[in-house]
């Protein structure tokens, strides 16, 4: 699983710097994600994980550095054009459309695709997430936290991304649901989806991932195969509470 990857990466982030006004949130980070990998980005609160994902997704602009998708520079491509380039972000806090039905939420996920293809993908999602099928006509805001997370992930998958970015999918969920979400992530990986995963739950993230990056206040401090980091002393102390 974690052999050295060769060839060009699907995603290549090179030395990006991101600011919020005067706040220097990302101070030159570089990372790669290869086809069919799960890569996880872990780190404490405020390390800059979400900022990194939002920058890759085009919601924020790096002041310096480059983001390449499939060898193409995507700096300055607006977030709304990113989906059709094969990049999909399932944002922190789910951000599902609370007033829209489950079905409408999924339709929005496929906004950039031709209408004729949507029905097939809907069926696919309902098969993967049977809970959503039962709640097809229910208003998003009335779903439970776990169901909302599943909806957010399904919505992100509706664009058929080449790279799926997940920002803390296990946030605020009961342990049993966390297990379930990570189960889904493994399944997605098995079916060939490339994933960049941001997590607070370092234990679980390192168990499903191929490779990992550890972030601290805007910089990457460690990187390597996930199973190695899982047993690394410094990581254990800082993020695994042992």
């Amino acid at each position, binding site marked *: 699983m974690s052999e050295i990857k060769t060839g060009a990466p699907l995603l290549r982030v090179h030395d990006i710097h991101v600011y919020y006004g005067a706040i220097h949130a990302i101070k030159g980070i570089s990372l790669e994600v290869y086809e069919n990998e799960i890569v996880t980005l872990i780190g404490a609160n405020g390390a800059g994980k979400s900022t990194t994902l939002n920058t890759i*997704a085009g*919601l924020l602009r790096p002041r310096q550095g480059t983001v390449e998708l499939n060898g193409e520079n995507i700096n300055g491509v*607006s*977030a*709304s*054009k*990113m*989906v*059709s380039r094969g990049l*999909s*972000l399932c*944002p922190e*806090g789910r*951000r*599902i*459309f*609370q*007033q*829209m039905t489950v079905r*409408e939420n999924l*339709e*929005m*996920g496929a*906004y*950039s695709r031709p*209408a004729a293809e949507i029905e097939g993908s809907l069926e696919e999602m309902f098969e993967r997430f049977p809970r959503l099928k039962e709640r097809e006509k229910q208003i998003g*805001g009335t779903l439970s936290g776990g169901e909302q997370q599943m909806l957010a992930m399904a*919505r*992100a998958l509706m*664009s058929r991304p080449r790279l799926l970015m997940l920002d803390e999918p296990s946030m605020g969920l009961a342990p049993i649901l966390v297990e379930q979400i990570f189960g889904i992530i493994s399944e997605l990986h098995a079916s060939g989806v490339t994933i960049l995963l941001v997590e607070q739950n370092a234990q679980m993230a390192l168990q499903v991932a191929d490779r990992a990056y550890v972030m601290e206040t805007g910089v990457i401090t460690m990187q390597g195969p996930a199973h190695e980091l899982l047993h690394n002393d410094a990581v254990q102390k800082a993020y695994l509470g042992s």
Partner: protein
Amino acid sequence: MVAFLRYLINGISLGSVYAIIALGYSMVYGIAKMLNFAHGDIIMVGAYIVFCVMVYLSMPPFLAVLAAIVVCTLLGIAIERLAYKPLRQSASLAVLITAIGVSYFLQNAAMLIWGSNPKVFSSVFNVGNLRMLNGELVISSEALLTIAANIIIMIGLTQFTSRTKMGKAMRAVSEDKGAAELMGINVNRTISLTFAIGSALAAIAGALLCSTTNPNLVPTTGSMPGIKAFTAAVFGGIGSIPGAFIGGLLLGVIEIMAKAYISTELSDAIVFAVLIIVLLFKPAGLLGKPVREKV
């Protein structure tokens, strides 16, 4: 009894004009999260265009209204692009002040172009009146047309936002711009479209307003109906399409009834008193959804 019915129909007709204006107000608020105080003045511009095309170009009313719709749509898009879009990230107070500025700008521009003497508007849609109850109850064709237009617009917008891809995208943008963008929705274009629809409705409202209750067209013609329609939108629940519809109708009926049975001078005060009472009990308006703050 006949008098009451007459007042009721007048109220519904006036309320329909308010509702059409309120729909524009409400849609723009729902999506751009701003109060477009210049909305009332777009009504005025629409009415002037109808007047000019009918009187100076001697074109039929239908074409005059069409011309007004085109001009107001473009005007709405231009205002959004030039005045509001640069302030998208600014404090809402800055946007509000800008909107008031745009309102005065439109009024002064109209004063320059058309002068301050009233243009006497002849009805756009007079095809005779409907007589009922042995001729005791006369309903004007304008009133009927206004009511019909309101209902058609309300149904049309509801269908648009619930069934079409663009309409659903609009709802998505109104809920969460960032998430909508991540779906691939072009947020700027969606906001433009909203201003276009709202302004087109304002043009129709302008023609109807001057045909029914307000034949003396002056550059400030749009202000009061604009404020009343804003009130109607808040009354019904701002951001809600059926809310604007019901709010507008109720406001029109209350205003006419207050004029007829209580006092002409106090009618506006009564309208606002009712609004305040409703908001005391239902702060989000009649059909508004209580805002749930995200944590």
